[in-house]
């Protein structure tokens, strides 16, 4: 049986929402890590 999310039964559709949230989380982590490494006015 397919798992539904936000009332959307098809994972091929709701995974897009999950992907968006994961992408935002990735951008935050990347910036924190990279900005520690990169000097200002590189």
């Amino acid at each position, binding site marked *: 049986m397919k798992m*539904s999310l*936000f*009332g*959307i*039964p*098809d994972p*091929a*559709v709701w995974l*897009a*929402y999950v*992907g*968006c949230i994961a*992408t*935002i989380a*990735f*951008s*935050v982590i*990347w*910036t924190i890590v*990279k*900005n520690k490494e*990169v000097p*200002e*006015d*590189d």
Partner: protein
Amino acid sequence: MTEGVDLTTFVIMAVLFIIATLALGYYGYRNTRDSDEFLLGKNKASPVIIALSYGATFLSASAVIGFGGQAAVHGASLMWLCFLNLALGVVFAFIVFGERTRKLGAKLGASTFADLLGKIFKSKGIRMFTAIIIIVMMPIYCAAVLKGGVNSLAVITGLDYNLMLLVLSLVVALYVVYGGIIAVMYNDALQALIMLVGMVTIFAVTIGTLGWDAFGQLTELTISGTIQQTNVLPGANGWTEFPTIFSPEWWTVLSTFILGVGIGALTQPQLVVRFMSSKDNRSLNKSMIIGCVFVFIIVGIAYTVGAMSNLYFFEEYGVNAIQHVTSGTDFIIPTFITDIFHGFTFGDLFVSLFLVSLISASVSTISALMHTIGAAGGYDVYSAYVSKKTGKETDVKSLGVNRSVTMVMMILVVLYCYLMPSDIIAKATSVFMGMTAAALLPAYAHALYSKNPNRKAALYSIIAGSAVYLFWALFVNKGTSIFLPICKLLTGNQVLFDGTIMYVDALVVALPVSVIVMAISILLTKKNASVSQASVTE
């Protein structure tokens, strides 16, 4: 459709918006002393301004009303386009392309996208070809965005189309021509904030009216056969299920809407310039987070609300969105918003806020496009002309020429608006982004990452990508061949072949061809170089 719109409220808000826009235009004018500041405005913008400017330029009214309307027809599968907009259009673009573009741009002293490619490949031909693609194709996209935005506003408010077209074009022309990139970016940021407030309000009201389980209700109604998805191709499975794999609907949703626009965003010259305006990589990284959140809110809400609007129209009128809004997909979102806010306290104010958001979305994209077109003509082409005339290789940075070319191109864009068919915002966006990706993406990636950029390989890839894209778009794909019906004139048929192939977007074919041509050209050049090296050694 003027029901639900209080013209007095709208006109007051629109006038305030225009005053703020012109004030920021004046700020740009005061800070634009030379052509460098007109083209890049380097170090004049903070990460927040760059992020909001990138986001607002990226998303035109097309994202909200064009693709929001498409989501109402094709369903929430279009959220994959939102994902690609974030993952490719923002994160990948900033990390893989942004940092290197900024560094190389600064090192080579490049001021435009065409200039950057030309300087990396040391090729006047590549610079001219890129500038010509911008000058020829971008005004069509710009006109589609302008016409789409103004048309929707005219229908919703009942105000005169010609008057609105004139006022909007004049406002954009004034602040772009005099304020340059500084005015464009600061105005983009203001317009992005207006879009944010507008879209969040719309989402809150939609969820408040339909409930968090709107998609669940829509799914149940679809499965029971109470409501049916119409105006779709064979293979569609309702608004909350992905279309059947390899069906005509699957090809249309995946290749035209999701891939065409998702990948196309990577090589938008007007976006590349934002990287070059950034102070350093730390600022770029910060811009990336803000850009991500902004794009997710605007696009995610537009597509979610678009798909959910079917439940609203069914509950109110017993039909789905496109059955109720017969004037076309571009009018589904505006109709839904004026309808849903009807009877709400301060409903008039919110409808007017949505309309100003719509103006903001259109104007932010148009201004960035006009600036890019003006720079391509007033800097890239003009430099080539002066170099040829004087016989000396030179970059001519003239503020006056940039301003004049921008003004002339704005007039041309307004003329285009009268020649184009209506209801084409989403398709025109898809065509422009697909064409630029097929032509420029492999060359751009090669330019940034190769130690020895191969000029011939880049040129062949650009030519092959452009040629295959144009052929496929005009002769094979049914959706895009309507733009310029050459196939019909020559053969009597709208497209050359029947069957599923006519739903495959040109980008899906043209981009791999462009990549393959580049790879083969690089390999052949290396082989020839080793043969010549061997004969020299002998």
